[in-house]
């Protein structure tokens, strides 16, 4: 059985239907890339998977690891191993990065019935993973994402991914706004986390990220549905020809 089974998913925001019958199956160990024009529903899919309440599912099912994901709150999904790397990571003044991350890890551990990590267990791991993402250790004591550059924020998302070791990692346009060095570092972090028991859903607007992250499948999302699926070669074709030829009908929602 697949790790993630999305069947005929319909979802709305503020009464506007964005996802209109999306079906997708992701196995553990695989990397799936979801591409598509602005407004096609890529980020909506990410938010639904992370269980954001403002995104209402009106029809369809999502089975995650054999369980009904739509029954889960955001924190339950997180504890069950769903991780979303945010397109726009949120700044939280007043909460330190290290405290935040250790508390998050302990929330997950508590859910699994494991002992909490103390600072002595946590710090060496944190420092090691920061090194992997070429992050300045000083960021550790700053507030969550506060005053971080765009690249630092995205790296911090991947750092959290590397610490929380989820089963399903969703990357929502993690590449957008990154220069080539930052992109390389982020991809390096993701590649280091690839594992047989872990799946990635990589949402991206550009093919560029896929030069660095080896993807198994590419899906093209148009108007709330998967219009086309294929192997990595599909991404290259999209880069050359644009999205227009993939559209099921002529309507592409503007951004």
């Amino acid at each position, binding site marked *: 059985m697949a790790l993630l089974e999305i069947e005929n998913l319909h979802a709305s925001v503020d009464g506007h239907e964005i996802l209109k019958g999306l079906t997708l199956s992701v196995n553990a160990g695989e990397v799936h890339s979801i591409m598509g024009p602005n407004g096609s529903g890529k980020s909506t899919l990410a938010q639904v998977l992370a269980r954001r309440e403002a995104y209402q599912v009106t029809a369809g099912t999502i089975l995650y690891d054999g369980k009904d994901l739509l029954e889960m709150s955001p924190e339950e999904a997180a504890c069950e191993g769903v991780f979303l790397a945010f397109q726009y990571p949120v700044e*939280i003044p007043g909460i330190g990065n290290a405290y935040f991350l250790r*508390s998050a890890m302990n929330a997950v551990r508590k859910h699994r019935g494991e002992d909490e990590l103390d600072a002595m267990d946590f710090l060496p791991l944190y420092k090691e993973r920061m090194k992997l993402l070429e992050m300045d250790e000083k960021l550790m004591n700053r507030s969550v994402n506060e005053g971080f550059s765009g690249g630092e924020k995205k790296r911090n998302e991947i750092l959290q991914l590397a610490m929380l070791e989820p089963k399903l990692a969703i990357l929502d346009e993690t590449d957008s706004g990154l220069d080539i060095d930052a992109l390389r570092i982020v991809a390096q972090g993701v590649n280091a986390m690839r594992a047989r028991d872990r799946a990635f859903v990589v949402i991206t607007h550009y093919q560029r990220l896929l030069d660095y992250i080896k993807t198994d499948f590419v899906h093209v999302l148009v108007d709330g549905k998967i219009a086309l699926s294929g192997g990595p070669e599909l991404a290259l074709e999209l880069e050359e020809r644009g999205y227009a030829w993939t559209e099921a009908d002529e309507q592409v929602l503007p951004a």
Partner: protein
Amino acid sequence: MKRTRKTRIRNGHLTQDNKASNTGQLAGYLQAYGQLRAERHEREPLWMQQLREDAWERFSARGFPTTHDEDWRFTNLASVAKIPFRRVLKSNVAHLAKEIEPFRLPGALCQLVFVNGHFAPELSEADSVPTSLEWCALKRAVDCGIESCAPGGIEQHLGRYADVRRDVFAALNTALWDDGAYLRIRRGAVIDRPVHLLYVSAGEAGQIAGQQIMTHPRTVIVAEEHSHASVVEDYISIGDEAAFSNAVTELVAGEGAVVSHYLVERENLASFNVSTLRIEQARAANVSSHSILLGGGIVRNNVHPVLAGEGTECLINGLFVGAGRQHLDNYMLVEHAQPHGASRQFYNGILAGEARGVFHGRIVVHKDAQKTDAKQTNRNLLLSDSARIDTKPQLEIYADDVKCTHGATIGQIEEEQLFYLRSRGFPEREARNLLLYAFAAECLDRMKEPAVREFAEALIRARLGDLVLTKDSAGGAAEVAEEKQSWEEVG
């Protein structure tokens, strides 16, 4: 004239310029004033008698402010003015030792306890106070005069700064204070642990219903040149009875002195608390005022620094947390009188239930105060639809080379932040609590005295924990009433 007035008071009548509406409301205060005069008249030096008399005249002429007063527009005292508060005579309070124990400040250098307005030596601890810090109960300091208790002359400071003409509560305090603390930090002395002043309102056993206690604590802090000290003024209640605390503190910071003042308001929810901190800063003095308002039913917190010397720095830092029907009014008046002064005001408010907050931030830059750098920020979180904040910045600039900025924000817990935390596994309640705490922690981070910081942190955590548990604080994200103002004025 003076004689006539005294006679009138002794006869129990009000002077003629009183408004008729005040007459009934002021009777209790008049009685207290008459009683106090009878007790104190023989002992007090003339200057003090004169101060009390002038102040009483001022108070009795004006009575309680109404919402027609611009400075009281958002705070209606009509219900409080009706309550016949009474002054309590000094009594033995040794039996309260156990009850005040949980209110002590761990790590304090000393603790001076005042119960119902009177110094309680039996509850105080001041054994390890170095000679560089002189302390005395204010009543004794005034009665003894210059020689023994107050070298330098307490009459140089007491009543010199608090403005009885502008502020009726300062007038009422000056007329009616029974006692308080007098602290003098000697030139160059570094007092490295905080002084804790605990002002207790304690309902008495067998208290007659409707006979609520009033106190008018008066504190004088004189920090001489280049001295360092931290003082915590802490207001608490024993029991659930309503009480009226009307405190005035005059803090004088000499040249280069570094003083931190902390106000903690944690009285019961039936209490009415007015506190006025008047700061006078000499050249290069650095004063910080931290207000932590967690309790009280109706609370008015006045902070009024005058940057009277060149190159002074003043930090005014505050946090107010209200729930239920609490009303927390913060009135700041920062006066820059000399060049190169820097003032920073940061007030954060968290309001749940039907609580109401007020932030009135007035900055006055006088003609000579060139190169003034004044900044004011008021941030507010409203946790329910019925909570309310009125925030009112006010700049008066008479100098032409100054930098003044002010801004206010009003919002709710940000749904984005809440979701971010939840998406990382934080349970919703914990995430809300963490965000509230982070908002409050901005104020905590400005408190540099470690013992007080730790103490304040525990109080704030406990208060916020209560807020998150109340149902009304979990207000929906759908109805976000947000209003942002931010503007800058550079002359």
